[in-house]
């Protein structure tokens, strides 16, 4: 059962050379009770995908095609006005990138909470505050103190938790976190991840975590989706994907993570640089320039995201076994260094 079903979503941005897709035909399910991790480099379209889950892609962007079915709300891409405002926050809780800096510096957290309640026409504001305090307390904050604080009186990890309180206080069943641990140090990162898992389990949420750090996400996610050049190139159960990555990009991403164990020389950075809107390949596979396994067909036909092993999907022309056993050697064509 899926709480959110994204089908063939295409999001475009207007540029000087016309409308270019930042997300191209992405399909993704957020399953009830599971944490889905969405990883990719800067410019892979992961934040755009997340924002479109609120139907809030900023201008000059637009959702050009596809549907986003949210349980109990319907197709979000067709909503507008008041219905859309109710769905944002009401059905889908969103913790923004750098949410440490997304609080109003002139108002206490409590007053901002009341603003949120009023704009969503919550009748019982006392109950709202009680729920916020309860959420805060369960995340290891002192609810009373936090509501009375201005944002500058809270540490980065505490502000991140306040962001989660705001996202969940209206009983949203879907929680989206955009880069929740970036700019936090290791200890705060560990505690924020801990709390996300706890809040997720306690409230039976469907959670999507967007990050570029495959290491951090692997700690708590159930499913993993990998995004590159606006496409989802691989997804499946997290442990499966990490143990047996079948897309060369997933494999390279895992290999490029600085790890605390294992051989230091075994890890290597991804060659080349991630594509952006203007440089992403128009035909063929978007990853082929940086791919060590690229063959001729990769330049001509774009591989489709197809299911295999029942639970998993991949978009690659090369056999999974080749990707799995082959060495991450020099790619066919190394672009500019990063």
């Amino acid at each position, binding site marked *: 059962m899926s709480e959110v079903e994204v089908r063939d979503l295409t999001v475009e941005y207007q540029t000087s050379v016309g409308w270019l897709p930042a997300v191209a035909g992405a399909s993704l399910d957020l399953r009830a009770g599971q944490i889905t991790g969405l990883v990719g*480099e*800067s410019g892979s379209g992961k934040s755009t995908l997340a924002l479109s889950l609120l139907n809030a892609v900023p201008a000059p962007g637009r959702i050009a095609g596809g549907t986003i079915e949210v349980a109990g709300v319907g197709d979000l891409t067709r909503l507008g006005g008041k219905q859309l405002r109710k769905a944002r926050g009401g059905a889908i809780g969103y913790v923004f990138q750098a949410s440490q800096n997304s609080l109003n510096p002139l108002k206490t957290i409590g007053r901002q909470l009341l603003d949120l309640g009023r704009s969503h026409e919550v009748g019982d504001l006392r109950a709202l505050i009680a729920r916020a305090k309860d959420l805060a307390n369960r995340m*290891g904050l002192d609810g009373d103190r936090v509501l009375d604080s201005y944002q500058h009186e809270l*540490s*980065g*990890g505490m502000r991140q938790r306040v962001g989660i309180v705001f996202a969940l206080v209206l009983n949203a069943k879907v929680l989206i976190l955009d880069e929740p641990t970036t700019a936090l*140090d*290791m*200890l*705060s*990162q*560990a*505690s924020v*991840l801990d709390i996300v898992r706890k809040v997720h389990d306690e409230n039976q949420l469907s959670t999507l975590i967007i990050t*570029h*750090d*495959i*290491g*951090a996400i*692997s*700690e708590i996610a159930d499913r993993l989706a990998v995004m590159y050049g606006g496409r989802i190139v691989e997804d499946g159960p*997290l*442990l*499966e*994907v*990490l*143990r047996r990555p079948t897309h060369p990009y997933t*494999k*390279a*991403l*895992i*290999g*490029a*993570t*600085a*790890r*605390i*164990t*294992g051989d*230091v020389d*075994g*890890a*290597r*950075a*991804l060659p080349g*640089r*991630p594509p952006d809107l203007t440089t992403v390949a128009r035909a063929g596979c978007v990853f082929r320039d940086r791919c060590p396994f690229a063959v001729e067909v990769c330049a001509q036909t774009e591989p489709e995201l197809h299911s295999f092993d029942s639970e998993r999907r991949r978009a690659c022309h090369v056999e999974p076994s080749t990707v799995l056993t082959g060495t991450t050697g020099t790619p066919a064509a190394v672009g*500019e*260094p*990063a």
Partner: protein
Amino acid sequence: MIQARGITRTYQTHGSFTGDRTVHALRGVDFTLPDGGAVSFIGESGCGKTTLGKILTGLETFDGGELVVDGVELSKLRPRQREKYFRRIQMIHQDPYSALNPTRTVEATLGDPLRMRAKETGAPVSAWRERAAELLTLVGLEPAAVLPKYPHQLSGGQRQRVVIARALTVDPTVLIADEAVSMIDVSMRLGILSLLRDLRARLGISLVFITHDVATARYVGDGGELHVIYRGEVVERGLTDEVILSPVHPYTQCLLSAVPVMRGLEEPGPDRTAPTAALDERTPTPGCLFQPRCPFAGAQCAETHPVLVPFGADAVGTDAAEANVTGADVTGADVTGADATEESGHVHACFYPESRRVVGVEVGAASA
């Protein structure tokens, strides 16, 4: 060669409501950075590691201790005389997005310091273009493609390479990398780290690596020493791999436990632990600074301040500690005096030292 002995830095703040407050940013840090060597400092936000980096580059003053660069004690020199020493120590900033002037091309960014340096050394000033190209090649960029570009036209990793090239324009012998990879995509970090390692090997540049991400400290090269710094004080020191594999101080163990485990490829360490409370600077800590948050604190910890002692030695350093702790005023010079004789090896400041295995363990069968 840089030697720091008992560097202290204290800030006095005067808030209208909070009254006077003394912040001990550094409480007696000492380390030795040999030529071509590498020293890493790890710790959480606010532990003083950035202050240390600023002191080493001359951007910040220190109010106690000695900083000796190539045999010269810097605090005795006048600012003018100091300049040439600090020229040898260059900083790579955390955020490559704000470290470069957005209105200047890479060519302009590199040109000014190169011409200035050429005047100093007496080299022909006109040769700066070749030198700029040479430096960009050294950091792995294509000079012709990058020189005319503005920072916003480059990716994060490329910008950080430009920042490194700019640091190299004045022929430094030491680079200070303050969270040099934390703002960069994970996939690009290893490239920057291997560049730093490469610079050590090829140019003999020594490196001070400041980070909160312990895993990246492993990638800066051989023979690196790791200093774990907590609230301005070094609580554990040793060879990087040794500290990671057998941390002794509970704070180090908490930090290392917080490193995410790559599930499927790694299993959590058997002794994983976490601090019992969040950092509260307002609580007075006459004893061990970490005592209020320590999962293993004993009776002694609240009263006596531990100092660095070698791991495995019988003496736990209480005598020295008692001699040094006079009220709350622990000056760096006193504390570090006790271990000044201990030039290398694994040292820690804990009364109940016990090596624990907290970092993830690689799953044998799986391979990346």
